[in-house]
């Protein structure tokens, strides 16, 4: 919902803090997720994620969440799906070129990032890779959990972890 999503951006700091508590808890449960089977969990977890993030952020389930790097404004709500910053068409009043009634997602994102912690807010400056459409409609949480496990395994075996695809997220 537009009003809820704008509220979430106004409270980007709170969202960031909440996620910073949630992520380690969720990814620590990896042994449990594995026992239940990541494949089997995909549908129900994706449904919960869609419900919660859909309500809070108007999340579009791209499956590779970028919220932590975009000031808690979901970039998939930008009609051009821009994930790296605003286009050049933003209106003088800060509204969207394509949808004049909507505030530009990236004007929101910039404001949100300024409200986050220094470290979190700085992530808006990192270049994001293009969306991998194979992950659309899948759970970003489970993906992060698997990714973290991979990183732990690699760290334990002494290899340097490869570049992870995209930023872990909310």
């Amino acid at each position, binding site marked *: 919902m537009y009003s809820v999503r704008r509220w979430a951006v106004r409270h980007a700091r709170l969202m960031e803090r909440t996620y910073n508590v949630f992520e380690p808890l969720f990814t620590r449960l990896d042994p449990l997720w594995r026992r239940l089977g990541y494949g089997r969990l995909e549908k129900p977890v994706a449904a919960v994620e869609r419900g919660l993030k859909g309500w809070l952020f108007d999340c579009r389930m791209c499956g590779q969440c970028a919220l932590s790097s975009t000031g808690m404004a979901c970039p998939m709500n930008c009609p*051009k799906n821009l994930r790296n910053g605003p286009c050049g068409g933003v*209106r003088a009043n800060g509204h969207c070129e394509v949808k004049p009634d909507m505030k*530009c997602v*990236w004007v929101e994102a*910039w404001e949100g990032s300024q409200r986050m912690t220094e470290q979190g807010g700085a992530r808006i400056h990192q270049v994001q890779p*293009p*969306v991998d459409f194979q992950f659309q409609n899948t759970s970003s949480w489970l993906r992060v959990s698997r990714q973290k496990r991979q990183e732990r395994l690699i760290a334990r075996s002494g290899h340097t972890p490869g570049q992870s695809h995209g930023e872990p997220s909310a």
Partner: protein
Amino acid sequence: MKFDDEPIPGYSLPILPGHYSPGRLERVLRAGCFAVTTEIDPPDSADPAEVLKRAAIFDGYVDAINATDGSGANCHMSSVGVCSLLTRVGYATILQISCRDRNRIAIQGEILGAAAMGACNILCLTGDGVQAGDHPGAKPVFDLDSMSLLEIARTMRDESRFQSGRKLDLPPRVFLGAAENPFVPPLDFRPHRLAKKVAAGAQFIQTQYCFDIDLLRNFMRKVSDLGLLEGPDRVFILVGVGPLASARAARWIRANVPGVHIPDAIIERIEGAQNQKAEGVAVCKDLIHQIRQIPGVSGVHVMAYRQEHTVAEIIEQTGVLAGRVPWYPGRDNPEELNPESPDALQEETL
């Protein structure tokens, strides 16, 4: 400036040490000259002569010509088509690629094709929304954004591979550009967004129309503070300018063309003039004089849509080329004249 190895039309220049492309634009910028680029109006036609005719208007005044890619979301001859025709006779082109109409498969193929046809410069754009143009019912693609497009083009050039990782046999030797609009919100973010583009691979920037010198000055100061104008990976900034045809046209552009910021003072100045068209050109010249004084600016990009004939006058009278005559077909060897240039046509009738 004259190079001792000027091109045989249609063939590339040697790539100088520390350069990325075999093109003239990169040479002019790295030599520290104030560069001038412009935009060709692509025809709604399949006539190659029309493209050459429209390019000849700029002969001797510009270092490179942008071939737009469905700008304003209106349909015209493709940018690759225009570039191919122009590079055949030796013009330096800037191929615009927008993310609006094609996905990553089509775009990467286009980069290879264009480089093979002699396009040495690529401008990576997001693109205007389809609602702005003559086919509002079209599907907006936006598979990539300008930032990921830059990164992919750079990877193709420097690492010789597609985004998928698959190897290229010969990488495209291109000088990479991007657009920036320092005049619209979020203003504080704009210099940082530029830094992000440079990190993604941008080597030159062409800005949106500048009608507000104070905003530009601020922007340039911040860009310079971010260290983007120094070192081997520095970025060259070409500021967008152009003549406004009348106060009415200016108001229309402000209301209908996405991202163009025109202060009231400019419109009032044109409105108050006897000859509004001439005043529009005068405003453009004044802006160029001021822009040239701003530290860190490497040139101007003149967009004179439907007023292309004013470009020569504007560049001539502002003296920004400092006596330089940018190469054009026939500059050194009349036999190479663009067959559609007025000079060539005159010779024929004699």
